[in-house]
């Protein structure tokens, strides 16, 4: 297994003085499915966003396939980003565009600027995007506008957009925190299955320990910007979990109240 991502001494201080990350060291090997757990405010989201520099790290080094991400110029950064898919808590779709167009956004990093501006996606890209949507059970929603979908469906579109990048690594930032339990399972299954099948490494932020244990091949615990646990799911005992969530125990099992209706057809997709 090759080393995909190597983070050393990653620190992020926000302007207000809060230290979100305090010297994180992390190695991600290819095909790993890593769950990052920890209470809200622990720095999970900042960690993921520093990897593709949606948030600028304060210090430390990030090495992605031999490329120093923190030093990359804008051109190299785009190249790095094109190989890293990202899934967001709030789906982050362009609501006025179609589902297909949102998935095709995953191809932008591989196109010339002008081709992207004029929607000159290749036929192959379109076919692959539609195939991805079929695979997650959205074959009837391809040409619908993104804002017509339910939350669970939107997140599956988000997953397809990340997969359309044919990435080496997927960063999923609380992908199921805004979903009901049923949609959560569908979305987690879709992420896990596709990553396993296509050999994509994945870093997924979660706050539910149970979900993390169910899917992950490795679990990382973060607390106050520091890594306090790193090991296989079996090694994460109740003692560790209690330590990570000390003072915020309620978040451990918390399944946030569903914001949206579950998928009306009730079918389970993966």
């Amino acid at each position, binding site marked *: 297994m090759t080393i995909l991502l190597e983070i050393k001494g990653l620190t992020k201080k926000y302007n207000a003085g809060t230290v979100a990350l305090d010297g994180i060291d992390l190695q991600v090997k290819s095909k790993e499915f890593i769950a990052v757990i920890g209470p809200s405010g622990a720095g999970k989201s900042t960690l993921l966003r520093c990897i593709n520099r949606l948030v600028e790290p304060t210090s430390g080094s990030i090495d992605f396939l031999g490329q120093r991400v923190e030093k990359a110029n804008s051109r190299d950064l*785009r*190249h790095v*980003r094109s190989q890293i898919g990202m899934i*967001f808590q709030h789906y982050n779709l362009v609501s*006025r565009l179609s589902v297909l167009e949102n998935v095709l956004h995953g191809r932008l990093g591989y196109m010339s600027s002008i081709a*992207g501006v004029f929607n000159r996606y290749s036929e192959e890209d379109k076919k692959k995007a539609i195939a991805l949507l079929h695979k997650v059970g959205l074959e009837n929603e391809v040409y619908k506008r993104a804002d017509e979908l339910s939350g669970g469906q939107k997140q599956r579109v988000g997953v397809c957009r990340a997969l359309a990048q044919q990435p080496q690594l997927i960063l999923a930032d609380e992908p199921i925190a805004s979903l009901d339990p049923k949609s959560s399972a569908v979305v987690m299954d879709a992420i896990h299955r596709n990553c396993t099948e296509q050999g994509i490494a994945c870093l997924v932020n979660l706050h539910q320990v149970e979900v993390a244990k169910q899917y992950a091949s490795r679990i990382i615990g973060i607390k106050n910007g520091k890594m306090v646990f790193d090991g296989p799911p079996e090694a994460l005992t109740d003692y560790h979990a209690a330590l990570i969530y000390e003072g915020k125990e309620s978040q451990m099992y918390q399944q946030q109240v569903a914001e949206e209706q579950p998928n009306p057809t009730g079918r389970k997709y993966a």
Partner: protein
Amino acid sequence: MNRAEMLARQRKAKRLLSLLLFVAATLFSVWFIEFDIMEFLSGIPLFLNFLFVDFMPPNLDDLSKYLQPVLDTLAFGVVATVLSSVIALIIAFLMAHNTSPHPVVRVVLRSIISFIRNVPFLVWAAILVVLFGVGTMPGIFALILLGIGFLSRLYAESIEEIDKHAVEAVEATGATYLQKLRQAIIPQFMPGYISWTLFMFEITIRASAILGIVGAGGIGSQIKLTMDLFQYSSTATVVVIMIIMILVVEYVTQRIRERLL
């Protein structure tokens, strides 16, 4: 005397003082501009007489004569709206904080736009008439300036209000600046763009009716022309035509908005 009572008295004194100051300011202003209340009151019958006797009935004899100025005005509106919306669009992208290439560009453009907007429209028209002479060109230029000042700011505000999350996601795919604009920002900005541009068209129609007063052509110049010739019944016709035109434009833009949004 307790504290609450003192506070109440203080408040009462403050209120009395502000009232006195307000009355004093009004009295001073009336005295200063030599405002004659009797002249104002005795003017009312004169005004009503003018409105209902001199203006009535509207002279409908040469309706066809006004067709040309009406078409002129509509064409002014279309040209000015299209040109100013194109220019304002570019300025807005350079000026909105989430799309501006550099803070300096943003600040410079913001000041220029704010200057254009803060010079009243009729002052622009008057200056341009002096520069280009009486005719249609100063009118169109004034409308374009009005449009640029108005639209740049509103477009920029709409751009700043769009959902940042979707933009972030497109950035995360490795998209370039132009791709980000086209794929994430423009689709979300479209409703704002269409609705402000249509509103701008309504404003240009109203404004171009006024423009004639400073000699810049269009239907407004017919008002001035007929009044200068004491043909008040014709003036009345022009005013009615203007009102109808504005109502029709409002109706049409409303329908377009409903169809598109």
